[in-house]
C-alpha cells in the first residue's frame, strides 16, 4: 500500500509532558482508518498535526507526497481545503443558521456570493439528510443533527469537482473526525457512522476517525491503529483486532478496568 498520509516518528509534548513519543502511522487513499486509545493518549493531537492546528516537536508528516508539517500558517489554506475536520463538539457558530454555517467555507474558500453560497449550503445539508433544518440555529437541534451539519460544513470546504452522478460538488480528499459519535444516542451514532462510510464509498474520501466507540470501530473501519504510551501499539483490521491475543488490546476493546494497561490517573 502506498501511504497517502504518513506520520513519521512524530514527537509532541505539552508543558514538558510528552504525549507522542515517536508515533508512526501510514494511511492509504480512500481508507477508513480509526485511531483508538485511552483518553489523553494523543489521538486528537495526532490528527490536528496534519492540518497545522498543532505543531509537532519532531518528526515528519506527509500528505499526498508533500511534507506538510513545516507549511507556515499563512500557506495552509489549500491543505485545509483538501483535508477537512469535523470537531468533537461540532463547533457550529451559534449566531448563524445551519445554512449560514455551511455557507461560510463556500464563501471563504470558493469566493461564492452570499446567496449562491446559501443555495449550495442547502444542497450540502441535503447530502447529510438535514435540508429541512437549514434555517434553524444550532442551539435548536440535537447533538446528532449538529454533528451531521458539521459534516456538511466540512464537505463544503473541499475543492469543487464532479461527483459520480456528474454533478459539480465540493468535498475534501480527507476528512478527520474527532470522536464523531461521542455523546450521541445509538441511533444517531449509527447514522453518523453510515455517513462516514458513504463518503468513503461514494466519493472516495479518506476518513481518519478518532473514536472510543466499539460499534463504530467494528462496523465501518477498514483498519484500526491502537495508540498506547505515545506510539502506535498495533495496526490491524477490525477482525484482526478482535482476534488479537495482545493483552493490552484485549483489555481496551473489552473495556476491562483491570489489566496490563497503564492508565494515567487511575
Amino acid at each position, binding site marked *: 500500500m502506498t501511504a497517502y498520509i504518513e506520520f513519521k516518528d512524530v514527537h509532541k509534548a505539552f508543558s514538558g509532558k510528552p504525549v507522542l513519543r515517536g508515533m508512526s502511522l501510514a494511511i492509504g487513499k480512500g481508507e477508513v482508518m480509526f485511531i483508538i486509545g485511552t483518553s489523553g493518549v494523543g489521538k486528537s493531537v495526532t490528527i490536528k498535526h496534519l492540518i497545522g492546528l498543532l505543531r509537532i516537536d519532531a518528526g515528519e508528516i506527509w500528505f499526498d507526497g508533500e511534507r506538510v508539517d513545516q507549511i507556515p500558517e499563512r500557506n495552509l489554506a489549500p491543505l485545509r*481545503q483538501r483535508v477537512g475536520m469535523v*470537531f468533537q463538539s461540532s463547533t457550529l457558530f451559534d449566531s448563524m443558521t445551519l445554512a449560514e454555517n455551511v455557507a*461560510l*467555507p463556500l464563501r471563504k*474558500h470558493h*469566493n461564492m*456570493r452570499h446567496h449562491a*453560497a446559501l443555495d449550495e449550503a442547502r444542497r450540502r445539508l441535503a447530502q447529510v439528510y438535514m435540508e429541512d433544518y437549514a434555517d434553524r440555529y444550532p442551539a435548536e437541534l440535537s447533538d446528532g443533527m449538529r454533528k451531521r451539519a458539521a459534516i456538511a*460544513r466540512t464537505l463544503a*470546504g473541499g475543492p469543487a469537482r464532479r461527483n459520480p452522478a456528474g454533478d459539480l460538488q465540493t468535498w475534501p480528499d480527507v476528512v478527520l473526525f474527532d470522536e464523531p459519535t461521542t455523546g450521541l444516542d445509538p441511533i444517531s451514532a449509527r447514522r453518523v457512522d453510515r455517513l462516514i462510510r458513504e463518503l468513503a464509498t461514494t466519493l472516495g474520501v479518506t476518513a481518519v476517525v478518532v473514536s472510543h466507540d466499539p460499534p463504530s470501530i467494528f462496523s465501518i473501519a477498514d483498519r484500526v491503529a491502537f495508540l498506547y504510551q505515545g506510539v502506535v501499539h498495533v495496526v490491524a483490521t477490525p477482525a484482526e483486532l478482535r482476534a488479537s491475543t495482545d493483552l493490552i488490546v484485549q483489555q481496551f476493546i473489552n473495556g476491562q478496568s483491570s489489566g496490563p494497561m497503564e492508565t494515567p490517573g487511575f
Partner: protein
Amino acid sequence: MKRFIVSGIETLGAAVVDAVHAVVELWLVYVSTIAGIVRGLSRRRGGRGRPKGEILRQLYYIGNKSFIFIIVTLGFIGMVMTYQACLQLSRVTGDYSQVGQQFLRLIVSDFGPTLTGMMLATRVGAGIAAEIGSMKVTEQIDALRMSGVLPIDYLIVPRFIASIIMTLVLATIGAVVMYAAGGLTANYSWGVNPNLFFDLDLARGRHFALFAVKSIAYGAAIPVVAGFCGLRARGSSEGVGWATTAAVIGSSFAVIVLDFLISAAALFVTGGDL
C-alpha cells in the same frame, strides 16, 4: 540551599521568558489587526474577512450598552472632584474663579478619555475576552481557521474599529457630562457662578488634540489586549475565567501606561505648556 537558589532562578527565568513571549505575541496580534484592516480595505467580495454587519453590531454592543455606565460614572466623579476642589480652595484662598477653567483642561486633556478608557477596559475588555476565550476552548477558532477564515480578521478587526469609534464618542459624551455635573455641584454647593465655571477661554486646540489621541489609543488597545487574552485561553471554563481576568487587568494597565506615555510625549512636544 543551592537547590533552592537554582530552582528560584529557573522559576524567575521561565516567568521572564513567558512574559517576553506574551509581549511578542501581543505585538503580533496588534500588527495582524492593522494588516487585517488593510486587507479589508482592498478585499474583493467573499474574501477572508469579517462577517457582514459585524462592525455595526460591535458599535451597538460597545456604545449603546456602555452609555449609561459611562455617563453615571463620569458624572459622579465630576461632582466629587469639583466638590473636593472647591472644599480645598475654601480652606486656602476662597477664590473659585479658576475652578471651572482648570477643571475643563483636566477633563479634556486627561480625565475624560482616561476614565472612559478605564471603564471600557473593564466592561468591554471582559466581554471580548470571554467571547473569544469561549470560542477558543470550544475549538470554534480552529473551525474558523479550517473554514478559510483568519480569526483576527473575523473577531478582532471589527471590535478594533468599533472600539476606536465608540471610545471617542463615549469619551466626548462622558467629558461633557463630567463637566456639566461639576458645574452644577460648584453652583449648588459652593455658589460658583455658572458663567464663570463654564468659561472655555483657557481651552486650546492642543487639549482637544490630546483628548482625541488618547481616546483613539485606548480604543485601539482594549480590543487588542482583550482579544489576545481570549486567544490564549486554554482548557475549559476555568481558562475562560483566567482570560477574562487577564483581559481586565491588561486593558486597564494598557490605558494607564498609554496615558503616561502620551501625556509625557505631549509635554515634550509642547515644551511643557499644556
